[in-house]
């Protein structure tokens, strides 16, 4: 198939008015359409939010991608991040912790920088990149608007470090995208935020047991290990 679209996707896709006149589709793989770039802190204190975001992305049918998923010393860290952003149609950018860990330290600017790369890909990228969509999460919207007035009008969503609020923010954003494109009428609706969070809590309750059965790896659980556990739980 010249467009590179899977037969399953084509069967569900709306027909274009005139395929001969429609813009040529770039190489759009299912991998890209489902890819969601997770741009968030990696420290342990943030883990409850990060784990909830990853769970929700899977629960909504997407595939989380993150700089933690592989190491390649040949590639620079920035190249890896650029590749991941280019490979994902979706993005979650959590700027809630753009602040110094200790008072004397400088704030961490990685997350806003990666958000800028995502915006740049959307603004200046090829046809495929122009259909990007992202959710910006913050701790407190008023304080954030004072700190980054360039993003006023982007409607960041506050989660106040509450995993349930983060789950609802992601789920509601994706449901809004379905509604905006009219696909809410043809696709099965997403589960509610409450239902996804209840499932997440059940999963968290069983996670220590799963890690024990896997050889006591709770402290060695990588991003990919965690994703594998979540995707098997939800399958």
């Amino acid at each position: 198939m010249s467009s590179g679209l899977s037969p399953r996707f084509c069967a569900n896709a709306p027909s274009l008015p005139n395929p001969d006149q429609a813009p040529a589709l770039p190489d759009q793989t299912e991998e890209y359409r489902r890819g969601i770039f997770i741009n968030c802190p990696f420290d342990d204190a943030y883990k409850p939010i990060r784990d909830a975001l990853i769970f929700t992305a899977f629960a909504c049918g997407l595939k989380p991608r993150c700089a933690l998923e592989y190491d390649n010393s040949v590639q620079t860290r920035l190249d890896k991040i650029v590749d991941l952003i280019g490979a994902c149609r979706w993005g979650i950018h959590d700027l809630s912790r753009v602040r110094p860990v200790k008072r004397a330290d400088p704030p961490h600017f990685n997350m806003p920088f990666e958000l800028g790369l995502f915006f740049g890909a959307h603004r200046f990228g090829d046809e495929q990149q122009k259909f990007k969509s992202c959710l910006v999460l913050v701790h407190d919207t008023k304080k954030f608007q004072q700190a980054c007035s360039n993003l006023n009008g982007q409607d960041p969503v506050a989660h106040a470090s509450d995993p349930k609020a983060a789950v609802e923010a992601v789920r509601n954003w994706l449901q809004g995208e379905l509604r905006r494109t009219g696909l809410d009428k043809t696709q099965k609706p997403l589960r509610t935020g409450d239902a996804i969070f209840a499932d997440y809590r059940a999963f968290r309750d069983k996670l220590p047991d799963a890690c024990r059965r896997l050889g006591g790896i709770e402290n060695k659980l990588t991003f990919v290990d965690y994703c594998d556990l979540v995707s098997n739980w939800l399958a």
Partner: protein
Amino acid sequence: MRSQRTEKPTKQSDLERLYMPDFSGPIQPAPTGCRNTKPEDVKRVIAEILRERTVVAQS
């Protein structure tokens, strides 16, 4: 002229819908990369836990 103005957004929205995934489709597999587990072990362990959970719920 008027028809051209209305035609373009229609094509754009049709194209945008083509770029959307089927959210209600199957759960995606984990990405490949750094891991401390074997995929077959994870699958087995989660299946065991879900089976035990179902048994407890039914009893």
